[in-house]
Structure formats: C-alpha cells, structure tokens
C-alpha cells in the first residue's frame, strides 16, 4: 500500500468505515444550521445536540425502512 499524505493522497478506507463518517457530517450540518437559526446563542449546544440526534435517528429509520423495502418487496 502506498503512503497516505493528508490533503494530497486519498485516504485508504474500507466500505464499512464510510458509514461512520456520516456522523461528523451530521454534526457539522446541525452546528451550522442551529447557529444560523437559534435566537439565543447560549442554548446552542443543546439545540445542536437535539438536531444531531434527530438527524441520526431519522437516517437510521430511513435506512431500515429502505432495507425492509428492498428485502420484502415482491
């Protein structure tokens, strides 16, 4: 395997690892969205946490729903 230089070469990665990388991306979206939308910056950490949980649970439900559809659809 060739050496990986960050910001230059692509990171060697397996398909199983890819799924976990959706978590930081959700956190990032939740952070910016709530930063823009919140009325009180002091409540930001809780609002970000709730949106993050909401997004992750939504993605899991969507994933399970699509998996069931693929598995049991005639």
């Amino acid at each position, binding site marked *: 395997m060739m050496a990986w230089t960050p910001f230059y*070469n*692509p990171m060697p990665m397996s398909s199983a690892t890819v799924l976990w990388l959706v978590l930081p*991306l959700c956190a*990032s979206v939740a952070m910016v969205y709530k930063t*823009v939308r919140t009325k*009180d910056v002091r409540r930001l950490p809780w609002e970000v946490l709730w949106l993050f949980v909401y997004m992750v649970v939504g993605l899991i439900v969507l994933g399970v729903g699509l998996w069931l559809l693929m598995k049991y659809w005639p």
Partner: protein
Amino acid sequence: MALAWIVPGAGHLYLRRPVRAAIIFITIAVTFWAGIAIGGVMTVDRENEPWWFAADMLTGVHGLVSWGRQHRVQEQAIVDAKLTPSDQTGRTGAGRQTAAAQEIHEVLAERNLALVPPVDTVARAYAGVAGLINLLCIFDAAMLALMGAVGEPPRPTAPESPAAK
C-alpha cells in the same frame, strides 16, 4: 453577500454577530478540509464532477485554494501524459477526448492521486456539503442585512409573573 461567500462567517461578523461568525467559519473550514484530507488534492474536480465543483466553490476561499492546488496537479499530469491541447478540448472528436481523460486518470492513479470508490463519495460529500451549508449562511446574512438586523437579537425573557406587577 460577497463577503459571506469569500470568507464563510464574514457576513455574520459584518452584522456584529461574532460568536456565530466564528462557529460558522470554524465548522465550514473543518468540514471542507476534512473532505480534502480524506480525498486528497483531486477532490475538487471541475472537469469530471461539475455539480460537486459548484458546491465546493460555495465555500469561497477554501474552494478556490483547493481548485488552484488541483489545477496545478492536473496540469502536471497533462504534461506527463504528453497530451496536446486539442486532445483535451475535444475538437477532434469525443473519442479522443475520452482517451485523453483516461490517460490523465492513469497518470494520477500511478501517483496514488486518483479518487476511487468509496473514498470519492465521502470526500466530495464533505467538501460539497460544506459549500451548501455556507450557502445557507450567505442567504441568512443577506436577509439579516436587508432587514437591518445588526447585532444579536434581544434574549427571550420569561413572561412576568402577576405578583411582580
């Protein structure tokens, strides 16, 4: 709007919302450069991924710096693949253009620079999503500027109890 595009968070800083500006700047920078760290220099690719490229450019200075880096590497690959300008513009036919793109891809693959699945999807999603969330911030800054909403909004207060009146 231009300020909010060039430097993510600068629009909010201009509107005297420094905490929000700092959070936006750091989050978008970290998300975008995480994508580049995962996918490498070829993550921002105008020729092969125009839609992702458009999203990348919404990050302003981050996208422009990455495009500059990618352009230098791509130009070097073209020189090393010994291609002529007509090979790339496709004036001599789509088949020749595809062959030229394939040769460039092979040069990049030899140097471990070509993006392959599943890394390409992850890297481009990180960089592209950073651009899209900056678009949200650009619109927010533009709307706040149009409404003349400078500074943080007043903190919501608890309703007064009848005893306090």
